């Protein structure tokens, strides 16, 4: 048994401890955000955040997550109330098939949480581990910049 939080909720996992997190999220926890893309940590479709850092859930056995905080796409918002990064992706229509986008958004979220005003190079570097095949890259970069502005504006409003 492994226990960790997923999107803020404490979960005790029945799956064998060597099961990669991806299959626990998609199977036991019935979450769709993390996608199976390669199972090899090469494409980024399965990216989730563990204690704020992006990880490939497809190669992360749950035994490594005892007591940790996992965040998935579902933890950032919903279709009705999307989070700022999700809203930016919708506003920029930054998807074609959209299969890679969950991973992109998680990487963007991690980047923006540690750097509120990333330049182009920082955005490209942060997204480098994630593959997109439709060629939506240009829009994805735009969406990350839009999200940065939105998050900065929100911070401004709080102050």
């Amino acid at each position, binding site marked *: 048994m492994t226990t960790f939080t997923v999107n803020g909720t404490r979960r005790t996992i029945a799956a064998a*401890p*060597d099961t990669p997190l991806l299959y626990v999220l998609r199977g036991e926890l019935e979450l769709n955000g993390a996608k199976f893309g390669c*199972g*090899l*940590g*090469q494409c980024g479709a399965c990216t989730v955040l*563990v*204690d704020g*850092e992006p*990880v*490939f859930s497809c*190669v*992360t*056995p749950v*035994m*490594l*997550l005892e007591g*940790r905080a996992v965040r998935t796409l579902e933890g950032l918002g919903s279709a009705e109330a999307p989070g700022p990064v999700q809203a930016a992706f919708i506003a920029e229509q930054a998807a074609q098939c959209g299969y890679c986008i969950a991973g992109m958004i998680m990487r963007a979220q991690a980047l923006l949480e*540690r*750097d509120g*005003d*990333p*330049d182009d*190079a*920082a955005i490209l570097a*942060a997204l*480098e*581990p994630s593959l997109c095949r439709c060629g939506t890259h240009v829009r994805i970069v735009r969406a990350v910049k839009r999200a940065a502005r939105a998050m900065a504006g929100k911070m401004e409003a709080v102050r």
Partner: protein
Amino acid sequence: MKRVLLLSLVAAGCGALAALAYAWHGEMAPVSPPPAAAFERAQIERGASLALIGDCRTCHTAPGGPTFAGGLAMPTPFGTIYSTNITPDPETGIGRWPLAAFVRAMREGVDREGRHLYPAFPYDHFSLTTDADLAALYAFLMTRAPVVATAPANQLPFPINIRLVLAGWKLLFFHPEPFANNPARDAAWNRGRYLVEGLAHCGACHTPRNLMGAEIRSRAFAGGEAEGWTAYPLGAQSPVRVPWTKAALAQYLREGWQADHGVALGPMGPVTENLAEAPAQDIEAMADYLASLGTPASKTAMPKAPAPDASGQRPQSTGWQAAAIALPADTGAGRRVFAAACAVCHQAGRPLPLGGVDLALSTALAAETPQNLLNLILRGVPAADGLAAPVMPPFAAMDDTALTALLDYLRRDIAARPAWPDLAPAITAARRAASPQTNVNPAKGAP
């Protein structure tokens, strides 16, 4: 701190004594950038090969920046030094350098204006290079595309930021001699030694340095450090399981991997990328010389453990990953982590370079410190830029307890060596080095 203090004392003493006598170098008059037509094509091509062997572009190119335009930050124990622009741009590069100034920089570590250069630029190796080769390198560099780029200022503490101090350093540690052939050895070996000791500057990383940052010549190739990575000992002191042969070295240098040793990673990665394009006979010569450095006395070739699928018929179209092994209930934590996170690729039988290396052969596990292994686990091997190359995911999510257990298991059970002592500080240091930019984007400086 101790290091800086000591250095200050020595520098002050040496500086005072030597400054006038030794430190002074005059400025060489600038020239108009020579036109491309001033150089023979054959000479340029020879220079191109030598630049590859010299790994010039690796240090003189900022990440994502134009080749040879400099600006790469090089962390040293003394502070950060930025590489300079060696494109022929007249204002910000070396466009106005006469050949003599280039030769002086390579041989004496002094720039055209007469300023001493920090030994991060390995003139202590380059000084061996012949006149003809330096002229060829010059021809190559002067025919590159000029790029306007000024490197950021070095970040060095006093007194190291005073270049005159380097005169004292040179007095103590820099005694260049021209290269002399060893008549007892054949031409290939001598060529290899000329390149390895000279332009290729292997010792700059693979030889330990003293407190003042100078290579300890008496311990040549005994292993050193570069950019937070261990540069393994070469020759008789090499920790490898399977001794290097000339053929294995040549393949490794040319292709960046070797089945019995692994894949070139960290700062060695770009070195082999350069060498891949260098003349084959030069690589052979380097391998010849490196092989002559000797093999570890006590070690003999170890038979490779058979892959789980010895038949070689594993249908890779189900994936190159191994099925989980049922572990007994009393299995230790380290082996459990290994089985879940590592074995799936490293015991799956996919051939190198794209497959995971057989960890029993891995030099990282046999090395004196866990530094490289930690770097690999925490950073992984990112995908190469558009090239077919191995990819290993990072396992930064592994906490210190799991990491410690894993390293103990790998070291004792897989590498069959005594456990590394005191893993905690090594883990902390490796985590710090591996973490993405902390709170600010360093390219833009602190807020």
